[in-house]
């Protein structure tokens, strides 16, 4: 909210603090001043100038060359205003000045004549236009005086960030009331002098509430004989200073009182209300209303409206209707001041996508006892601005008084919660300053908390809708003294915990492992578009969909980390120069509904996504680019698994829509799938616009890794006896897998001391029969307690050779 300090001080004349002190105090009390605007800042560099000479411009009839005195020097200024005359005092924008319309004043040459500044019209200074041409100041104004001073532009405006619990400070009066408490001044009062006419208002109009729950109170007044027209300048200027446009004297009066007292008001053209009455009721289905903003709305049975005898004429607490709008010919007014239930206004405002000054306040809670005061104040102001006669009496419907709100507070509870001694006196003084009234303890009954004998009880004024429980009063006491009065202390020692969750440990370990392998961590927005999910062949029926996405890109919660990584590859490929050597990873959750799930939360799975493409190693003067292949990626994953102490994982061929059939593989451990990897399917790469080297991707489930984490490795005694190494080379059918070879070798030497098997060569091509491949393995034998004899090693080797031949048809070429 924008607030004027001048206005506040008019309402609280005893407030002498300067704007900076007010700003500090408000912020310290929880009413944060987010920005400060000095009116004078809009006129920096503009001073009073005295016109000393006027001569014609040799190059243009409409222009004149003037000499202007700024209190110290004379300046030559080219001027195009028709009314410039010698001796005038005018606003003079000196070099470097910046006008409210954004214009910066520099030295210029106009039709061959130099000009050092500018003489201004009222419009150029952002003021209401008075005459054509220059703004003429009083003859006795002193040249050189800043124009802001001459115009009385000395207000300081605050941009306040008001939290939703404090509707009571959404007005200048509310702020004055709060500042009176903060600066220990007497609270301001609303005083209205209203002269009523002789005719009884109730003979001119009627009000009726049909929905007392949503509108518990409605007050109205009738004014006759008004003359609608423009507002005087002071009203325009005041509204403008707090960011409001002037409309007409009547409407401006309602807005001005809204800004002053914080209570929303509305003026109907009484002549346009059918049956001279208003009814507060819910709309019927099918009813429509045309609003002041020019839109037409279909109403629902949950919309509260103000209607006349025939039709809705306003959306209650939100906006008036066009059909009852005050216009130039209006002479009779029905002024509305009402109390609408917050939730009711909010539901309607949300449904219609409307947010107005009125709805903003009603949604947060209006002040029940301000209804009549605001009504009288606006009536008086309208008569002042637009003439006419306030007719006798208020038209009232609904309850007159709100049920008093009594809240208790225990000083010892305040002491315990705040952490500094808070006594009875402090509680009483602080709350009284805020307008609460000490009362006797209420009679015990159901619903009131039993706070014991020591509690103090208060009646909460109707404007403090946020004070409902003990803790709210405790906050007021703490807030008024300021949080800097609270000591800083460490909590008493309690049981120590010192643990992180298992999954988070795993996440951190993976993150550091991959960064150590040269991968960059990314964080992507956790959404997919439908199209993306489709390209990756994700299971769309199980997608978690947003009901209110921001656009295509945020339609689904993501089901895989890979689309974002692939999109990142595309983005980096588009750089100049193109970046195709990429190592990226992300740790994040994926979302999906379980099959047929209808209740509860969707599944969330923390996953690791990896993308690798381009050179295996950074290239340079000494090494040429070698592209990453499936075995680089597998090696990376083996490293990850080994960091988790996971061995014995099976690598099974895996068909997935996003993986190339030549390399799609999944990692399986004891029947549990840990994840998958492989080359991104060329179709996917193409559809996402990837060019250049193949893209390799992997996807692991972090919780599965954590569950599979191996036991802490135990130390094994170092081998005392020498190993024997034998190499074998053989041909076998190319469809046999390395896994089968190793399994056959291990099985054949189950009782021998085979320590390790390592495949060190695989070859197809020249010298190898068609349909076959050549493979070479290195075998290491070792016994724990003795040196193996040659005969033993050879025996073991023979059974391995035999097994390879029998099981895989391998022909050993070399031993």
């Amino acid at each position, binding site marked *: 909210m924008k607030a004027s300090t001048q206005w506040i001080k008019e309402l609280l004349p005893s407030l002498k603090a300067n704007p900076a002190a007010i700003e500090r105090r408000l912020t310290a009390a*929880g009413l*944060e001043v987010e*920005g400060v605007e000095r009116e004078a800042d809009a006129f920096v560099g503009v001073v009073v100038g005295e016109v000393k000479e006027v001569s014609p411009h040799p190059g243009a009839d409409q222009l004149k060359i003037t000499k202007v005195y700024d209190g110290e020097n004379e300046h030559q200024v080219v001027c195009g205003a028709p009314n410039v005359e010698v001796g005038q005092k005018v606003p003079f924008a000196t070099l470097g000045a910046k006008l409210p319309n954004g214009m910066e004043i520099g030295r210029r040459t106009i039709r061959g004549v130099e000009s050092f500044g500018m003489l201004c019209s009222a419009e150029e200074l952002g003021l209401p236009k008075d005459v054509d041409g220059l703004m003429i100041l009083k003859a006795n104004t002193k040249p050189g005086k800043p124009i802001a001073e001459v115009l009385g532009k000395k207000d300081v405006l605050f941009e306040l960030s008001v*939290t*939703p*619990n*404090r509707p009571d400070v959404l007005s200048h009066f509310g702020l004055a009331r709060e500042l009176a408490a903060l600066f220990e001044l007497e609270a301001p009062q609303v005083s209205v002098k209203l002269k009523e006419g002789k005719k009884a208002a109730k003979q001119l109009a009627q009000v009726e509430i049909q929905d007392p729950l949503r509108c518990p109170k409605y007050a109205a007044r009738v004014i006759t004989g008004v003359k609608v027209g423009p507002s005087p300048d002071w009203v325009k200027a005041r509204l403008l200073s707090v960011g409001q446009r002037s409309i007409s004297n009547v409407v401006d009066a309602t807005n001005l009182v809204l800004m002053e007292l914080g209570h929303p008001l509305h003026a109907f053209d009484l002549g346009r209300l059918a049956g001279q009455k208003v009814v507060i009721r819910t709309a019927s289905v099918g009813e429509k209303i045309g609003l002041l903003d020019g839109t037409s709305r279909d109403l629902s049975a949950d919309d509260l409206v103000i209607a006349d005898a025939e039709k809705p004429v306003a959306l209650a607490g939100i906006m008036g209707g066009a059909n009852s709008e005050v216009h130039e010919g209006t002479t009779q007014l029905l002024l509305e001041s009402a109390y609408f239930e*917050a*939730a009711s206004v909010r539901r309607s405002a949300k449904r219609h996508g409307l947010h107005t000054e009125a709805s903003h306040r009603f949604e947060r809670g209006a002040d029940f006892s301000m209804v009549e005061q605001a009504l009288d104040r606006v009536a008086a102001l309208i008569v002042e601005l637009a003439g006419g006669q306030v007719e006798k009496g208020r038209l009232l419907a609904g309850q007159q008084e709100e049920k008093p709100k009594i809240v208790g507070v225990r000083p010892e509870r305040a002491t*315990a*919660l*705040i*952490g*500094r001694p808070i006594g009875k006196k402090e509680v009483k003084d602080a709350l009284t300053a805020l307008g609460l009234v000490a009362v006797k303890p209420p009679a015990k009954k159901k619903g009131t908390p039993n706070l014991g004998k020591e509690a103090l009880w208060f009646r909460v004024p109707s404007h403090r809708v946020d004070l409902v429980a003990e*803790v709210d009063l405790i*906050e007021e006491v*703490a807030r008024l003294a300021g*949080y800097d009065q*609270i000591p*800083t202390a*460490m*909590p*008493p020692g*309690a049981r*120590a*915990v*010192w643990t*992180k969750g298992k999954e*988070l440990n795993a996440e*951190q370990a993976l993150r550091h492992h991959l*960064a*150590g*392998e*040269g991968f*960059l*961590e*990314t*964080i992507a927005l*956790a*959404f997919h578009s439908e199209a993306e999910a489709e390209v990756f062949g994700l299971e769309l029926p199980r997608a*978690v*969909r*947003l*009901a*209110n996405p*921001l656009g295509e890109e945020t339609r689904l*919660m993501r089901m895989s980390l890979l689309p974002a990584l692939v999109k*990142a590859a595309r*983005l*980096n490929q588009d750089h100049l120069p193109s970046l195709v*050597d*990429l*190592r*990226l990873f992300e740790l*994040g959750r994926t979302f999906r509904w379980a099959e047929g*799930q209808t209740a509860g*939360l969707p599944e*969330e799975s923390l996953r690791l996504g990896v993308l690798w493409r381009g050179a295996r190693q950074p290239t*340079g003067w000494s*090494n040429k680019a070698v592209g990453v292949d499936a075995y680089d990626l597998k090696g990376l994953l083996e490293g990850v698994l080994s960091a988790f102490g996971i061995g014995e994982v099976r690598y099974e061929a895996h068909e997935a829509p996003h993986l190339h059939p030549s390399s799609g593989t999944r990692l399986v451990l004891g029947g549990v799938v840990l994840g998958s990897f492989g080359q991104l399917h060329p179709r996917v790469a193409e559809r996402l616009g990837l060019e250049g080297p193949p893209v390799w991707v992997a996807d692991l489930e972090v919780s599965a890794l954590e569950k599979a984490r191996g036991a802490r490795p135990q130390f094994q005694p170092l081998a005392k006896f020498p190993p024997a190494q034998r190499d074998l080379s053989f041909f076998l059918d190319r469809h046999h897998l390395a896994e089968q070879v190793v399994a056959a070798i291990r099985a054949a030497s189950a009782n021998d001391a085979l320590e390790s098997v390592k495949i060190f060569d695989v070859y197809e091509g020249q010298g190898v029969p068609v349909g076959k491949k050549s493979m070479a393995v290195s075998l290491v034998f070792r016994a724990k307690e003795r040196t193996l004899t040659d005969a033993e090693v050879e025996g073991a080797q023979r059974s391995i050779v035999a097994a390879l031949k029998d099981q895989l048809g391998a022909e050993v070429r070399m031993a």
Partner: protein
Amino acid sequence: MSTEVESAQKAPTPEVLAEVEREHEEELVTAGDNLEALNRMRSQFFGPKGRITSLLRSVGQLPAEQRREAGARTNQLKQTLEAKLVVRINALESVEKEKELRRSRLDLTLPGRLAHPRGALHPVNRVIEEMVDILTRMGFELATGPEVELDWYNFEALNFPKDHPARDMQDTFFIASPDGKGTLEHVLRTHTSPVQTRELERRGAPLRIIAPGRVYRCDSDATHSPMFHQIEGLWVDEGVSMAHLKGVLTSFINALFGERGVRFRPSFFPFVEPGVEVDVGCVFCGGTGCRVCKHTGWMEILGAGMVHPKVLENCKVDPERYTGFAFGLGIDRVAMQRWGIDDLAHLFRSDVRFLSQL
């Protein structure tokens, strides 16, 4: 050669030996630092046909009673002279070898060969790890909760009533029902605070937890991303007061930003009462006022407060027995400030030029 032959015929008398020694000295001077000359000298004197070798051999021709003495004398001389020569040769040879090594000097201004490029953790996660380290050392335990959350935990239990404007503070993404017919009571969590209500309900008091993670708001512009990060803290126990809130948060902020001043202001969040907004002395200007801090000298860093009794009640914790404080702060802004990142969008765009420079 003629000298060799001549000397071979001479017996190793003291005079002869003195003569040989003198010659050795002279030649040593002549050879100087010439390694070749010194090696030649070595064979002239000590080689198989060298002068001293010949003199040793001639000892055998002396009468038996002279042999022992002449032999000892000659050997003595051989050792002395050869040692002198060898010391000189070794010294020169090591200088030569050193020169040889120097000739193979590499150009190490050429760039090194990397096994792999430098990897990097995402700045947001680096800040999370740092915060988690500080807070776990203060006795907080890590907790997590779902990102697709029920309205109850995200709003209702946290004292955000339905149709209340406090919900406007957080633009919410809602979840469509799986059959596509309507909207569920599910939301994308708008803050990490539902972890408070979940854990309080599940584990009761006393409780000390922190919960970092992703949160979502239906908002996207230059300063807002539909997804960002927060960390939540909750400390509930008997006798916890606002003084303890100030103590813990002051220590946390000092550890994170250095001691640059902390300011506590009243504010409002539905799930705390009293509510607090915490500012840290501006890290850009040090508190003197600059554009970043809007000339206030302070940067808003976190929201906090004493857990609202209603929240405790909603989680079946007795608010008369237990009190506590909660806090929450945005991580992304801390990361941006720490590395001078000027645009939030960089964080989530996966641009390698961004990720690899921090």
